[in-house]
């Protein structure tokens, strides 16, 4: 084992890590936004909307993420051509991001739904009694409380996504794992680079996990 080649490779690896973080942050933001919308649909009194969201969630939770990523890689350009009528290159990054957002939304939806349901019913009644519309009740009273309650779960799910972003290697995107692997291959030290990558994933995820636990304790008080 010779880890000496890793230090000179750092700038390239950092670029990979930047890509990983970018995918994660944007994926989480988009996923939470879409997931919240889906949660509101699932909880709505309109049976059509509720069913539609239910189908979406169950579908995406029943297929592997890897499949979604490859599928979107081929489907998104195709769909765009069907809509705009011309070839629109989107690139691996965009199609991966769309895949993450749509896939994670199914999981975030369930977290948000549980969060909303954990708020006492009377809060909705009190907000309504003050003349707020349904949208205002949700936006001003229910969701702010729900998000506070579910922050630890959302962060935990984000850590999972941090690891899952490594699946983008299938479409050739240079995230942290992929850049470590390819660099190792080129230099001829694949094991050292993979071990190093594993250590980095472990440290980041483990430390983040511990921080979430700490936060959970603080929020519980």
């Amino acid at each position: 084992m010779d880890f000496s080649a890793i230090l000179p490779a750092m700038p390239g690896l950092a670029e990979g890590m930047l890509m990983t973080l970018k995918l994660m942050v944007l994926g989480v933001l988009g996923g939470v936004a879409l997931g919240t919308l889906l949660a509101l649909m699932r909880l709505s009194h309109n049976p059509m909307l509720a069913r539609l969201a239910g189908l979406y969630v169950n579908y995406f939770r029943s297929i592997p993420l890897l499949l979604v990523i490859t599928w979107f890689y081929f489907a998104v350009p195709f769909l765009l051509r069907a809509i705009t009528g011309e070839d629109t290159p989107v690139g691996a990054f965009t199609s991966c991001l769309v895949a993450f957002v749509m896939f994670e939304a199914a999981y975030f939806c369930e977290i948000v739904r549980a969060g909303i349901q954990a708020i006492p019913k009377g809060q909705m009644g009190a907000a309504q009694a003050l003349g707020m519309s349904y949208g205002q009740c949700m936006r001003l009273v229910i969701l702010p409380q729900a998000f506070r309650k579910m922050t630890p779960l959302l962060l935990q799910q984000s850590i999972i996504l941090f690891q899952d972003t490594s699946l983008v290697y299938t479409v050739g995107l240079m995230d942290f794992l992929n850049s470590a692997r390819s660099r190792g291959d080129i230099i001829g030290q694949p094991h050292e680079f993979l071990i190093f990558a594993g250590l980095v994933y472990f440290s980041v995820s483990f430390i983040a996990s511990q921080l979430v636990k700490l936060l959970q304790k603080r929020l519980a008080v």
Partner: protein
Amino acid sequence: MISIKSVSKWYGDFQVLTDCSTEVDKGEVVVVCGPSGSGKSTLIKCVNALEPFQKGDIVVDGTSIADPKTDLPKLRARVGMVFQSFELFPHLSITENLTIAQIKVLGRGKEEATDKGLKLLERVGLRDQALKYPGQLSGGQQQRVAIARALAMDPVVMLFDEPTSALDPEMVHEVLEVMVKLAHAGMTMMCVTHEMGFARQVANRVIFMDQGRIVEDCTKDEFFGDLSARSERARRFLDLVLPH
């Protein structure tokens, strides 16, 4: 001000309200009492359409609730409601609790809303708690803030749904005191409560409910005056709640 006309309501097959009718005039204080499960909380929640009902109608200040064209949020903005469990918004400060609906529903400016909120806080004796959060206040204090929050909307009528039932005995008094002052100030009030002392002091009329029906609907003096004229069910109830 409030006119309840033959209201009936079912939860599935179970009928919770049967043909309830009564009127609350402007400036009147009406106390609704009865054993638990008699439908009094359900009835008062029908008045601001928090609970839907299947038959009959309720007209509040000229607006029909059963009319599907009625803008219910707009109607609710004119009807103040105080709940058994306070229901202050725990993520907002006391001041924000008092101003959020003024700003977002009535479209008042922040300064005007804060000004109004603080004046009402003064009126319920809690001006110095403005910057705290609901969780830092006692139950009685929270309920007084809840009353101020409802008043901040300049309601035409105030509904109270067992406002003192969740309070420690020594805090009941401070909430009732605020309610009595409000009644003396001429506010139209409909109060579900077991506080017969309050009813005696300020109520114009008392409604007694049992098993989803309005069994008694009479003036305070009639209700407390001649027990022999009351229904058997109301007599039994009064026997239990009135101090001996």
